[in-house]
């Protein structure tokens, strides 16, 4: 009789100290994909890595709940698989049989997610807490959209090109006109002298001084 009561007591106490089980109401499932993330440089998952995980999680709980001294022993892990998935629950340091609320654990993990990821050289996708969605990084939105800059450069070049092409023939024409008036004045002067010196042959009206006046 006594042995039966003892066995029952042992069993119940053993059962009572089984807070971690799959689908625990206050526990989370963790999935690691080490080979996917690191390829050839993947490390082997062993006891030491598990210890690091528990220590990192204790750190996260400590950072979130300031004052409560979480220890590695507060993080209980179970149901490990070759996939490298396992369940964990967090016990409170003030009351070892009581579990910390799921929501509190989630907040703690969210806060320190980056640190937890870096401890294992993993990312949000390769170190998954099933049920805790990673916060999405907002796409970078610079003040001046880059496309406007490129647009400005291209349009500036095109606009400058249009102005240059339109204005340069006018400028050239003006310059030519000035040169032509100078040249013509010289020509008529020279020709008049030549014709005047020979004074033979037919007087060519086209090179008279009237030319200079009509040029204006």
């Amino acid at each position, binding site marked *: 009789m006594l042995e039966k009561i003892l066995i029952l007591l042992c069993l119940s106490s053993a059962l009572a100290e089984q807070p971690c089980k799959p689908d625990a109401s206050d526990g989370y499932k963790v999935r690691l994909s080490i080979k*996917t993330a690191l390829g050839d440089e993947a490390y082997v998952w062993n006891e030491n890595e598990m210890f690091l995980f528990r220590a990192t999680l204790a750190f996260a709980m400590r950072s979130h709940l300031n004052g409560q001294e979480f220890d590695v022993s507060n993080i209980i892990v179970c149901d490990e698989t070759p996939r490298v998935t396992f369940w964990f629950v967090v016990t409170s340091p003030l009351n070892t049989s009581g579990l910390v609320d799921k929501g509190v654990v989630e907040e703690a993990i969210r806060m320190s997610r980056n640190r937890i990821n870096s401890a294992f050289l993993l990312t949000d996708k390769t170190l998954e807490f099933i049920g805790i969605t990673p916060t*999405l990084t907002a796409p970078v939105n610079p003040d001046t959209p880059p496309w406007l800059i*490129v647009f400005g450069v291209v349009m500036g070049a095109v606009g400058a090109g249009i102005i240059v092409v339109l204005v340069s023939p006018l400028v050239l024409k003006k310059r030519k006109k000035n040169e032509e008036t100078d040249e013509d004045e010289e020509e008529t002067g020279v020709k008049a002298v030549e014709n005047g010196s020979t004074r033979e042959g037919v007087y060519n009206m086209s090179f008279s001084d009237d030319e200079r006046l009509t040029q204006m």
Partner: protein
Amino acid sequence: VCLDKESYSGVEERPKWDNKIQYLLTCIGFAVGLGNIWRFPYLCQIYGGGAFLIPYLIALVFEGLPLLYLELAIGQRLRMGSIGVWKSISPLLGGVGIASMIVSFLVSIFYNTIIAWVLWYFFHSFQNPLPWSQCPLNDNHTGYDVECEKSTSVNYFWYRQTLNITPDIETSGSLQWWLVICLASAWCVVYICFIKGIESMGKAVYVTATFPYLVLTIFLVRALTLPGATDGLVYLFTPDWEILKNPQVWLDAATQIFFSLSVAFGGLIAFSSYNSERNNCERDAVLVGVINSATSLYASISIFSILGFKATNAYNSCREDNILDLTNHFELSDQNMTLENYYQWYDYLNSTFPDEVASLPLKSCNLQTFLDQSASGTGLAFIVFTEAVMEMPGSQVWAILFFIMLLSLGLSSMFGNIEGVLTPMHDLKIVPKWIPNEVLTAIICLASFLMSLIFTLGSGNYWVEVFNGYVGSVPLLIIAFFEIIGVIYVYGMKNFSEDIYFMTGSRPNIYWKACWMVISPIMLLAVLIAYVGLQAQKHPTYPTWNPDYELFPQTQVKDYPDWVFAIILLLCIVPVISIPVVALYELICCKIQRSSARAEPTHISFHDNKTGFI
């Protein structure tokens, strides 16, 4: 009676090409356009790959080359734009030139909108990461934007962030300012190339006509080094001979050749009118036609290498998603199941745990399905290709190269369209002489820009499809038909042969004569009737992007409302109405003049300032 040289003494100095290469590059650039990149590969794909080349080459030989040779020859001989040429041949045919001008104008309006879209993507290719690779967050930052999640980020960028498209054509939306400034820059680029007429354009084509070939080669070399390229090529060129029994294939081949060569726009006539008179236009026509088709083929090789790579990537990620689901469910070790042993694992798991495997949301991954996803037109360029570019290392470089190539292709075709508008305006002599050419070009560009603002509305893409489908199709077929009848039967085959003898030194041989007199007109008529018949069979519909549709992201097919249908009919009829109108007008005028002239002994010749041969 042939034209003789003395009649040209009074004609003003016509601009000339700097050299033969410029002329050839301009014609090739005009013929080779966006359709070679995004229409021909699609047709090849859906019509059984290698087998499609047979109707395509037959159409080229019997329809494309004769029309091309005809246009280049009359342009070179009569040395005027499309209106002047047709008025010279017969005043009754003056309407053909006007029709060409109207079609060129309408096409240039929507074509430049496509260039504006290319510019928009080009400006956005200078960012890391590319803007179409990520979905934006929704308003309270808890997840991604709903529309983007349901479709893909590439679709979202095209339909929402570029076009800001409305659910159907009746909802016009407002002017999208970013598209307006892209459109303005597109018109400015066209203007600067056209400022000095063919002097400036001739220099621009050295770049715009040759750059696409360079980019296609670069893409081809790059794509061949990517996995899956050969799958794409094998898929493209595997012939399906059964497809030749389908008459739709022959119709599409004929229309593709016709629209690809850009005949009946008047641009080719204008370009060849700037040639010297004794130029071998026969060789030019064959060269341009063959190079155009060869470019289509080359482009489809490049495009399909890239698409093969994209399909392989999609197939691999489909399988990898399945692998992840299976690995997670069965708690297998990470990376134990890979792409190589996927099928063995799957068979094993399916045989041992069939119920569990069936309960998982596994996708069926088939490479053929991914290769079958075809797209043409803007869908190919802005959705499929941008997605492919994202997966290539160094995406920005490839995106920039691709969009500069599209820009070059579009610009060189725009030159032909604008030329088809400007040269007839000079011929019509409605522009007073004191307006310099630069100002006239500026006025045309400004007017076109203002008209093309319709395409920057929310429903702009739907309107582009309307214009693309109806302006750039039936009117061109009608104009080409009248062109060939006009030259061969009104002007006379004999006169035309003599002109060609004058220009090239030899008369056209039996092949050309047979094509011009019999084969090409019959083919054109058959294509026209079949095309109109097919269009008229069902009420025209169009695909819309409607986020509220139950089956979103599939496009919802809607009917065109009646007022849009009326506009479509107008777009088909208005260009070609000028042909009978002008003919009637000339007949009436001629009769009136003749009856009044008979009353007087001395009469003024009706054609005194035209090259008189009637």
